[in-house]
């Protein structure tokens, strides 16, 4: 059996708020297999976004280890983390986080600018990613010229373009209508099932959660189910 792509052991995260310590994650241990579509659920403040951020390398644990493939993310410094994120993680945010002055094509191309690929190769990869999300005909549009669903699909194309093994999505359907939400979730599911990507999604929506292969419920910083 292949080793898990994500292996978390005894992971804790404490925040300091004024004079008191807030426990965001409390001794969490978890394995995630390659190609899984994990859904993290739980009430606000349960620690699901913190767990997602630590796995994605944009936050650091206070204690414990978080190995993604062969890398202990918690041990990387700021600069190494930036490189690691660029190669290994694709991000999808609730509010899309596209650069408003760049076209859909340019937004998708952004992560590739750090890879040293030639322009022709970058163009090829961007075109492929935009084809996958069905937006090749909108490649020259600015974000404000796209609908919310289209913006989120551009964001997914940006997450895919470097071909990372891990896709993390933080409430990706939170700002979308039902039809657009379904389109986005179908794309994420196909990435997991057909492209073999490991998808980790945070959501409050039970309908969205149904797309996952495994649901994890968090409460008070612990996985309860």
């Amino acid at each position, binding site marked *: 059996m292949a080793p898990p792509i994500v292996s978390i052991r005894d992971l804790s995260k404490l925040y300091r708020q004024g004079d008191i310590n807030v426990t965001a994650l409390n001794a969490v241990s978890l394995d995630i297999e390659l190609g899984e579509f994990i859904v993290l659920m739980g009430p606000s403040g349960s620690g699901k976004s913190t767990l997602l951020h630590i796995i994605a390398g*944009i*936050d650091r644990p206070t204690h414990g280890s978080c190995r993604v493939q062969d890398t202990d993310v918690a041990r990387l410094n700021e*600069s190494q983390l*930036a490189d690691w994120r660029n190669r290994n993680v694709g991000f999808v945010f609730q509010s899309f*986080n596209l*650069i*408003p*002055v760049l076209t859909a094509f340019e937004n998708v191309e952004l*992560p590739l*600018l750090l890879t040293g690929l030639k322009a022709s190769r970058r163009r090829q990869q961007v075109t492929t990613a935009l084809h996958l999300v069905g937006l090749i005909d909108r490649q020259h549009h600015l974000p404000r010229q796209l609908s919310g669903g289209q913006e989120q699909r551009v964001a997914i194309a940006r997450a895919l373009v470097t071909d990372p093994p891990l896709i993390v999505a933080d409430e990706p359907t939170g700002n979308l209508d039902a039809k657009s939400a379904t389109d986005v979730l179908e794309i994420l599911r196909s990435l997991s099932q057909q492209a073999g990507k490991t998808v980790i999604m945070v959501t409050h929506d039970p309908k969205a959660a149904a797309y996952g292969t495994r649901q994890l419920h968090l409460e008070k910083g612990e996985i309860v189910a």
Partner: protein
Amino acid sequence: MPAVFTLLVQSFLGLTALGIVAVFLTAHFSAVPVKYNLKSVFIRWRSTVATVVGIALVVLVYVLLQSLAVGIEKSNASTGDPRNILIARKGATAESSSLVTRAQLRTLQYFEEIERNAAGDPVISADVLTLASLPRKGQGGEANVLLRGVTPRGMELRPQVHLVAGRWFSPGRREIVVSRKLAGRFANFDVGDTFKTGPTTLTVVGWLDGSGSAYDSECWMDADESRSVFEREMYSTFLVRPKSPEAATNLIRRIESDKRLQLRAESETGYYQKQTLTAAPIKWLAGFLALTMSIGAVFAAMNTMYAAVGARTREIGTLRVLGFHRRNVIATFLLEGILLAMLGGALGCLISLKWNGYTTATLSVESFSETVFSFTITPTLAAQGMFFAAALGFWGTLLPAVRAARLPVISALKAL
């Protein structure tokens, strides 16, 4: 102390240049596309315009003041003939403060290093320099004008001076030829006019043009007539033409080493190139004003860039999440600030061109007379103006850029 100050200024400029080069290199090799910066700049066009105009004004003042200094230096640098040797009293720092005797002239006439003309006479001109206080045009009061008494041979030795109106003065007559550029600034300097200096009335018979040289600030008359009018026993300087460059070297060595003569000799062009005292205070003023105004401009740039960072906090967070390093974020904001400032610099340089070639005048520190010159905006000066603008952009953007790079990624992503 001045050496330490110079070292500090040079270090500061070097550091700025290195910083700007580093920004361009970082931006080139690993960066966010420049298009991102250019498009972002114009979204907040009001603050962009205010910053660009502010920097344009600073660069305009700097370039214009420096162009005055360049104009004076250029006027002096283009004066004289490299073949000529100027001989003055030992210790005299300027022609007007020099006195040389007729006995010295007689001695020099026998020096074999000096060229002879067709008639076999040595090519030497003995000039008489005097100052006359004359009324300006309009209500401008009076100012000193340098009157040069020259011999016909002195005119041959200065071919860059030519007549542009009227005729040359006649020896033995109280006639004078004035510079065309001075004619625009002084009363009674039109051809046919007369003016009084002391008890003597001189008639203007022509206008000369010195081809942009220091002679544009002079009026010429016959040397002996000048000695007579101003009751001078002595001349001011001698101008001689040696037979060859080797003869010139020998002549200078001979004059300098002859203790009886008590004279100093150097090339005519070398003498004028050293007359830079008048330009020095203008350069200092340009530096001082530029420094004072640049403090305001740096804060304007800083304000604009802090606003830019504030408005793009989430974009910065997104870039960091996608894998862009802190140095990329610093470089992209610095690049934006520098490009913005250089836009202002280009505008300032373009506006300054309106004054290029415009003639003005000041009091020469060397001769204590009115010296005319033109605003001279050279490519080097424009490049200095652009570097100055880039430096303003660099220092004005550094703190906002560092702030952008140090934003915590997660809170940046959550920014509205």
